[in-house]
């Protein structure tokens, strides 16, 4: 058979193109498979790291597993969260605390972990509320906010840092300058303070007055200095006057010198906190000039350098963390905001304007060599913070880096105008950075910090040890404690509320003390009361006390909101509210009064004990 040469040539070209195309596809697929394998955590397997991401204007902390990027928990802090029954009801003590200290929302930026010997010990995580000048402490054994502190004499709690290596204080920067004496009539330039908070008592021990806006914080690894970037040394009150000076500063505060001045009574006490003025106490504050309006400050894991990121300048300023002298100011790219580190002497700086992470070698930059830039990788888009695992502690692991990008644009399926935030996980174990995966979150994480699962997991409790005032099974009761007050001691266990009937009268204030008497993990019960703005979630062993107004006459079914058992839907009880003028007698009810000491849920005793 004779073939036309043109057909042969055409066939050859098509075959070659197909081969090249399939090779291309193969290569792409292989790179994808490699990345996928690095982040794939099979069902039932556990992630390697806990990542704690600040929730930004969600007022919470997000807990994400790394490398999978799975959102595992949200820890509500400054904002009520119905899902966790957190600070929901008007009479909830935590809600009242939030209202009293600034409001039921917060703007969380910087999660920091308690340290022992420069490494996270799994005891606490602190998170700031920029908006309302607060600092919260989260217990990592229960993943629960346990203390909230309103910082006096300052507004806008921005950068925070733990004083290394053993968590002597939490440093909190006051970003929004205020009249020095707190009087709005004072014409003098506004000033700010850096607060030093005791980690155990959560009290502000002392403050240092600083001119300008105090931004991001870190500390030297030996506990000597706290470093804060400062913008607006001009003390301007509008944008134009905030960016006049060519250089702003990194404020280095000598902590031992500061403690000495406080001990010598050199502080001016305002709102119970001694404030040290560095102008009257030389030797405490050193202002290190860096290009204007800097942003991040990050101390290298070995404690040798503090690195300030230029933001408006394409440079980072490398400061000797012991002598406070500027060592070098290498260019890294446009909009450098924050820097983190691996375990091999490399720094990674986020470039907001370039939408890149730049990897550079610290020793080469310090030595003035020209080839200090190692690699660059594109991120999507406008990266803010970035954090390598352990980069904020003494021993980085050098495996993963999380880029926290401000904009996501085209990265996810469109969901209307308000797009999710975009986190990208980057493999930094090799010379070249490799993009592994991305995951979205609701608005809006700023910063992150990590803990090895192997360290934190053994410290985590999954049930509560019942408190001394917990309600015991068999001792439930409904007792009238005043003309308009009823106290209910209630227990919950699969699949019943005891008591399952609470009779009250319109106008009563009903105080419910509820204990989940389950002992097995993950057996959480809810207590939702319709039309009373009330949902509580109770973990095993947990007790919560809440007071609600009885409301309008009617029958209200309280029910379990946290799916528990095969009889979850049946797990409910009634609050019967009698009209104000009802003449029905409402005897007290005691579970213990039931026959043979047996607890019969919800059976009111006829011979009620008074």
């Amino acid at each position, binding site marked *: 058979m004779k073939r036309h040469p043109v057909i042969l040539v055409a066939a050859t070209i098509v075959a070659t193109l197909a081969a090249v195309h399939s090779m291309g596809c193969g290569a792409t697929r292989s790179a994808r498979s490699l990345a996928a394998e690095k982040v794939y955590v099979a069902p039932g397997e556990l992630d390697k790291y806990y990542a704690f991401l600040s929730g930004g204007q969600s007022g919470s902390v997000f807990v994400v597993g790394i490398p999978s990027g799975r959102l595992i928990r949200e820890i509500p802090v400054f904002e009520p969260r119905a899902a966790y029954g957190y600070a929901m009801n008007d009479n909830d003590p935590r809600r009242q605390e939030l209202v009293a200290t600034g409001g039921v929302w917060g703007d969380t930026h910087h999660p920091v972990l308690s340290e022992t010997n420069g490494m996270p010990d799994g005891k606490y995580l602190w998170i700031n509320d920029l908006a309302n000048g607060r600092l919260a402490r989260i217990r990592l054994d229960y993943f629960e906010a346990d203390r909230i502190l309103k910082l006096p004499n300052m507004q806008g709690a921005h950068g925070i840092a733990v004083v290394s290596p053993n968590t002597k204080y939490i440093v909190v920067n006051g970003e929004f300058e205020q009249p020095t004496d707190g009087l709005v009539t004072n014409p003098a330039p506004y000033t700010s303070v850096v607060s030093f908070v005791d980690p155990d008592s959560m009290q502000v021990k002392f403050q240092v007055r600083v001119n300008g806006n105090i931004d991001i914080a870190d500390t030297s690894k030996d506990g000597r200095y706290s470093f804060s970037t400062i913008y607006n040394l001009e003390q301007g009150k509008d944008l134009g006057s905030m960016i006049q000076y060519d250089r702003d500063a990194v404020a280095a505060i000598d902590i031992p010198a500061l403690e000495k001045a406080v001990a010598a009574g050199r502080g001016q006490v305002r709102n119970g906190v001694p404030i040290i003025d560095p102008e009257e106490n030389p030797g405490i504050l050193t202002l290190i000039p860096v290009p204007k309006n800097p942003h991040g400050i990050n101390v290298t894991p070995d404690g040798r350098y503090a690195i300030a990121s230029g933001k408006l300048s394409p440079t980072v300023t490398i400061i000797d963390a012991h002598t406070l002298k500027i060592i070098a100011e290498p260019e890294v790219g446009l909009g450098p905001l924050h820097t983190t580190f691996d375990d091999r002497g490399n720094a990674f700086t986020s470039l907001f304007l370039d939408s890149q992470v730049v990897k550079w070698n610290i020793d080469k930059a310090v030595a003035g060599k020209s080839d200090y830039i190692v690699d660059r990788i594109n991120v999507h888009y406008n990266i803010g913070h970035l954090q390598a695992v352990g980069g904020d502690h003494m021993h980085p692991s050098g495996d993963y880096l999380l880029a926290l990008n401000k904009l996501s644009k085209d990265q996810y399926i469109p969901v209307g105008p308000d797009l999710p935030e975009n986190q990208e996980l980057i493999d930094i174990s090799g010379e070249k950075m490799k993009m592994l995966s991305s995951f979205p979150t609701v608005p809006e994480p700023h910063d992150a910090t990590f803990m090895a699962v192997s360290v934190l997991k053994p410290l985590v409790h999954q049930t509560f040890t019942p408190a001394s005032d917990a309600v015991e099974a068999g001792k439930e009761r409904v007792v009238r404690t005043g003309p308009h007050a009823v106290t209910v001691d209630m227990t919950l*266990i*699969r699949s019943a509320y005891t008591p399952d009937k609470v009779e009250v009268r319109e106008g009563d204030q009903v105080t419910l003390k509820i204990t989940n008497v*389950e*002992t*097995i*993990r993950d057996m959480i019960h809810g207590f939702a009361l319709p039309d009373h703005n009330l949902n509580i979630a109770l973990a095993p062993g947990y007790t919560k006390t809440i007071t609600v107004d009885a409301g309008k006459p009617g029958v209200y079914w309280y029910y379990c909101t946290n799916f528990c*058992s*095969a*009889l979850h839907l*049946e797990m409910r009880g009634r609050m019967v509210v009698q009209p104000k003028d009802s003449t029905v007698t409402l005897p007290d009810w005691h579970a213990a009064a039931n026959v043979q000491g047996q607890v019969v849920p919800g059976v009111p005793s006829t011979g009620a004990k008074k």
Partner: protein
Amino acid sequence: MKARVLYVAAAALVAAALAFPLWGFAMAAPQYPDETLHLQIARTGIVGDVHEISTLQHFIGVRFPTELPELRWATGAIAALAALLLLGACVGAGTVGRVYRVLCSVALVTFLVASAAVVQVRLYQVGHDRDPNAPLRGMRNFTPPLVGPVKVGNFTVWSFPHIGGVLLVAAAVLTVAGSRKAAA
């Protein structure tokens, strides 16, 4: 001589058995991934994950025995058997001694068989004497074997002699060996 040693050892084992749980149960289910539930029958009563298991049982109407009166006489019997066996080591190698030891081994084996029967009856009752109004439908009656698994709903329940039970069985083997030796 040999019989004496065996009987002293057997007496010690029987006495030791009182310090340990006699029987054990392990209950595994998908939603208890690394937290298999355990129950032990000990001299003092039923111990272990009693709280959780009593919480679960209402779903299938099992009446969890809160008290086991048998344990009182079993404890007495075990203590008495330990004393009898110790005596068996002292009664010498004569005919009286030999007969005594044979009776001892018969007593111990009888005790074990009787106890096993009682336990089995109890296990049968647990699986059959259920609340007819229990919420879960479609649950068949069940009888956990003395040793081995049974499927109860989503649970696989294993029964097995615990340390005390094993010690008693070991003691029985020793006494039988001891009485055979004496007879030979």
